[in-house]
């Protein structure tokens, strides 16, 4: 595996399966009374969040702490970043303090890439602009494998071959969609993206996925439907006429959910707009894996940190 995790494209099939298998092992620990492992004792992980995201930050924080790493939360608010310090100077500061991994969330596409030039530790991309969010894709893949391929030992070593995954919504601005298309296709899934043409990336035909504007047709053959958050401000930029029309054409309500095959699951990376891209009844239905995705997020991030930093900590031999 690479030293960094910046793009889902950095992962080979073997890398991705190793992460999922490691996560499955760690999941068994999560059920124990003492959930903490000594693996990364003595190592420092910095959560460097230039963009508010309590969910992702706490997920990474929990993951690092369960591996006994020291965690520093460095948020843009109230730090020197707010005073105009450059990404480079922040990187050099973190570097001087001696950090083993930097988890970065940033509003600019490529920020994780850029940061990786200036730090010696591992860089984990926790979402950069409209580029990628690879750990989200990993936790999504983990959830799919758990639910549709085989849980725990039964899923070991397996990919997502032949699984039909439909990703719906603002694909253009979605780092979750970019990472998922890359990772899921690496794992053998057949991915289809569905969006109004205005929210489809230019040259999307070069992506390893199919493209459709017709949600109903895709739902009938999907094993997984993943709904993306749609931001209301897209409306003012003329991407679609109104929330009402968006919901009517691309929202997942109970009527549409009924089109799905019996076994199919409904996913959402959160935070959801209930009543916009997903109806409350759908989000709370047994098909929904939205809560499982959150708990799997911690486990998968543990696996990523373990594999990127593993062996380097004092507790590695323990």
């Amino acid at each position: 595996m690479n030293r960094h995790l910046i793009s889902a494209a950095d992962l080979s099939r073997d890398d991705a399966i190793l992460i999922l298998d490691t996560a499955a092992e760690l999941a068994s620990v999560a059920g124990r009374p003492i959930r903490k492992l000594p693996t990364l004792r003595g190592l420092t992980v910095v959560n460097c969040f230039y963009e508010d995201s309590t969910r992702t930050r706490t997920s990474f924080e929990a993951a690092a702490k369960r591996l006994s790493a020291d965690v520093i939360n460095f948020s843009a608010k109230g730090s020197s970043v707010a005073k105009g310090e450059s990404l480079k100077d922040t990187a050099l500061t973190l570097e001087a303090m001696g950090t083993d991994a930097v988890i970065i969330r940033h509003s600019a596409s490529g920020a994780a890439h850029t940061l990786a030039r200036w730090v010696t530790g591992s860089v984990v991309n926790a979402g950069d602009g409209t580029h990628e969010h690879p750990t989200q894709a990993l936790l999504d893949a983990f959830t799919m494998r758990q639910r549709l391929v085989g849980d725990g030992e039964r899923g070991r070593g397996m990919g997502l071959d032949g699984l039909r995954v439909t990703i719906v919504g603002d694909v253009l601005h979605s780092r979750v969609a970019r990472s998922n298309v890359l990772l899921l296709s690496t794992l053998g899934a057949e991915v289809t993206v569905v969006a109004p043409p205005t929210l489809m990336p230019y040259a999307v035909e070069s992506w390893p996925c199919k493209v459709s504007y017709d949600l109903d047709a895709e739902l009938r053959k999907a094993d997984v439907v993943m709904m993306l958050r749609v931001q209301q401000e897209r409306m003012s930029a003329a991407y679609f006429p109104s929330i009402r029309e968006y919901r009517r054409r691309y929202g997942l309500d109970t009527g549409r959910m009924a089109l799905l095959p019996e076994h199919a699951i409904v996913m959402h990376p959160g935070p959801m707009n209930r009543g916009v891209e997903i109806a409350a009844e759908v989000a709370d239905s047994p098909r929904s894996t939205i809560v499982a995705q959150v708990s799997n997020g911690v486990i998968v991030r543990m696996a990523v940190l373990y594999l990127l930093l593993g062996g380097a900590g004092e507790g590695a031999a323990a």
Partner: protein
Amino acid sequence: MTEEWLIKGVSIAGGPGAADIHLDGGEIVAVGAGIAAPTARVLDAQGLIALPGLVDLHAHLREPGSEDAETVETGTRAAALGGYTAVHAMANTEPVADTAGVVEQIWRLGQQAGYADVRPVGAVTVGRHGRQLAELGAMADSAAAVRVFSDDGDCVADPLLMRRALEYVKAFDGVIAQHAQEPRLTEGAQLNEGEVASRLGLPGWPAAAEEAIIARDCLLAAHTGSRLHVCHVSTAGSVEIVRWAKSKGWQVTAEVTPHHLLLTDDLAGGYDTVFKVNPPLRTRADVDALRQGLADGTIDCVATDHAPHPVEAKETEWAAAANGMTGLETALRVVQLAMVDTGLLDWAGVADRMSRRPAAIGRLPGHGQPVAPGSPASLTLYDAAAPAEAVDPAAHASKSRNSPFAGMALPGRVHATFLRGAATVLDGKVTR
């Protein structure tokens, strides 16, 4: 101080074979075989090519206002090293070059530096804000004798204002050099809209945003009978539109940058901000169309769009980084690689596209004239056979290091540059 030179055994671009050139009193006094000039300094120029001194229609010298990036002195030193004897300095300085006072200041700084003639470009609108015409006549009548007007960096997007500007400059034979970029279609745009931008999650910069403005302005130039010059054409579609406008006999000219003749958007794949530029790097198909357009004369000239930036403006996230790349010191070598070594253009063609035509578009006296007796002794001696060597921005005379060609092996070497008979560059080094 006048210098007398005898350049021996040089091949003149477009000429029949090796010849001697005798420079005296700032002029070319003789060209031929075996010229005797006993008092002249002799320069053995066997194997070198003599070109008329290069003329750049488009460079950012940054002074006044951004002297940390470049000054007129460092910028013109870079120009001389690149084989240039005249440079048009773009108007996006601070303060903006939108009055006679500012353009005269820039012109004087050029005179003082003495490495190349500096012809300021005047802003079309006050402050380059696109709302009100700047005093174009006053700039034209000033000592700087401005003939090229541009809001470069920003498009004159308002069609009525553009029409008026085109009409107004007819009174003094000026030209409007348009930065063709439809602003609404490029809000937040970062990289050519295509496969690479989509993969990188960077907002796309559609070719249509450039082409729509060029098409509109060609129609306006036709309607008003005015002269339009299109800056840094970057797409295959733009070449088509200019070709169509020229076929109608309209007074439309166009330039292409060295980087758009060589580089493509996939270089931005690692978010290396040295490749961030406006207009953005495009695709291989665009590069091929631009080369073809330059070869067949649809595109009139090569202009560097030399855009120096301090390190901190580029050492940042892609979206926060400044647009632009340096180019004066590498332009001729890039043109050799992209146009000459590929067989698309001969050296006479290079002389035409890099000296004669840009001087004509800028109505620049004393430049772009043939290497022949009676012409001003402004010329460039170029060693096209010099082995390809990797570009090292640290060795550049420009104050800035943002060369997209860093580490690339480019052929050729500018051996010497003469400005009105005085050597500004000898053996690849500035003379003072």
